[in-house]
């Protein structure tokens, strides 16, 4: 039996110089095929959580296992979409070049990309619904198209786990809806871990909500469907607040969760 995609036990992480930990004593499991959503207020530790899973940060206490191994060792099995690409719109790079970067591998850094790499990149672009944009300059795309190209880059890695940090931040509602529909589709074949502000998304497709605010509280799927789905937006947040008293420190923080 293959190991679970993500297992955290008693993990604490403190940034150097910070007076209190960003994350404290958190234990979380993400199972095969899940669509797990990380929610919580700004500054609550969502991105820290993701960076721990990616092995970009290392906890001071506790253990993190990704597919049963040290995150550093299995990094290349994760397809990753960063929260914000510090991107120069004039950077001379085509959509195809961007997706091909997902084909980078430590044992194949020399020379150019192979025919197989190009095929995989083409498939990934088709999967996100942008097969015709391969030759376009990346900088000329809309925000939603760029995000989908970056998801294609993550897919080109042939990942076993897809990790997305706020894929819909700064997108309009139509583009956002497309991204979530795409994630739902990808979840049919992949385990997905996504950071989101969008609580309505949390209620509709997600198997597990991981509420991060220094501590972590996990809501299972049925809990969510019972208590959240019928609720209005504001009530949903309050519902989350009630079921997870330790999730949010105070009301004002908590209501920023849908920002």
């Amino acid at each position: 039996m293959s190991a679970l995609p993500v297992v955290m036990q008693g993990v604490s992480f403190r940034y150097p110089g910070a007076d209190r930990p960003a994350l404290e004593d958190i234990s979380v499991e993400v199972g095969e095929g899940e669509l797990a959503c990380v929610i919580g207020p700004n500054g609550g530790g969502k991105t820290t959580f993701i960076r721990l899973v990616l092995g970009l940060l290392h906890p001071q206490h506790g253990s993190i296992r990704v597919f049963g191994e040290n995150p550093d060792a299995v990094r290349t099995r994760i397809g990753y979409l960063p929260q914000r690409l510090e991107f120069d719109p004039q950077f001379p790079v085509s959509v195809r070049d961007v997706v091909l970067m997902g084909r980078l591998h430590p044992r194949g850094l020399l020379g150019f990309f192979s025919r197989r790499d190009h095929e995989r990149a083409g498939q990934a672009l088709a999967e996100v619904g942008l097969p015709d944009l391969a030759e376009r300059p990346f900088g000329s795309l809309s925000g939603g198209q760029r995000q989908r190209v970056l998801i294609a880059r993550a897919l080109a890695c042939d990942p076993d786990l897809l990790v997305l940090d706020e894929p819909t931040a700064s997108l309009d509602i139509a583009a956002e809806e497309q991204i979530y529909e795409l994630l739902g589709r990808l979840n049919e074949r992949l385990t997905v871990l996504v950071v989101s502000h969008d609580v309505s998304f949390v209620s509709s497709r997600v198997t597990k909500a991981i509420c991060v605010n220094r501590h972590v509280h996990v809501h299972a799927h049925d809990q969510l469907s019972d208590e959240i789905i019928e609720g209005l937006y504001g009530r949903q947040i309050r519902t989350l607040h009630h079921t997870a008293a330790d999730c949010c420190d105070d009301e004002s923080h908590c209501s920023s969760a849908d920002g």
Partner: protein
Amino acid sequence: MSEFFRIVQANPFLQYAVLAGLLASVAVGVVGSYVVVRRITYIAGSIAHCVLGGLGAARYLQVAWGLEWCEPFYGAIVAALLAAIVIGLVSIRARQREDTVIGALWAIGMAVGILFIHKTPGYSSDLMNYLFGNLLFVSRAELGLILGLDVLVVGLGLLFYKPFLAVCFDQEFARLRGVPVEAFYILLLCVTALTVVVLVKVVGIVLVIALLTLPVAISGRFMVSLRQLMLGAILFSATFTTGGLALSYEFDLPPGATIILLSGSIYLLSLTWPEP
């Protein structure tokens, strides 16, 4: 222009100058593309000025201590590589103070050079030639040196096209794909340093900076991939160096400044053309 080529045919001095410009264009087109897209023009400037420190120190050892083998050019290479590695490490370890260190090295490098020049017995005007170079005095050996640089730069560019592009575009993603990002970044800076050292010897500091940036900036107005950007920059640079030499010959002007002004005016002109 056609008259210029007739004169070039008859004049080996000018042949070497034109050839040096064409050969240098290959290296500056490739390295300049990385420098511009990674936004490290300032780093290239800092490295170029640290070269003076290395030149001065080596010259001092040669004259004052009688170390005959210690050519100023070797000192320049050591200083440039050292500056590249220091800047690389600082920018990896302590991102927010990067520009301070670059500026400090820039000034310290030059100051060290001037101190050594002052302390070196005899007249050191040849060091100034290093700094400001002169295309018209390029020797056969120097042409060989630029050719060697081209082989190195193009070779590394082809060999490491994928990781260099990834490191310039999205460092964090490259790291997650198992690319040793720090090593490639420092390698990139070292290649930049070697390019600067070799070309400073031939064309001088100011022209090196101009050639690393202006042809790429013009090329960037029309090209959508890094490969195209490099090829375009090589072509523009070749045109500017040859055209600049022709103009400087025609009107009896200093070649370096003429090439810079030609590149600069075409760059400004290119800004007025609409995006393709």
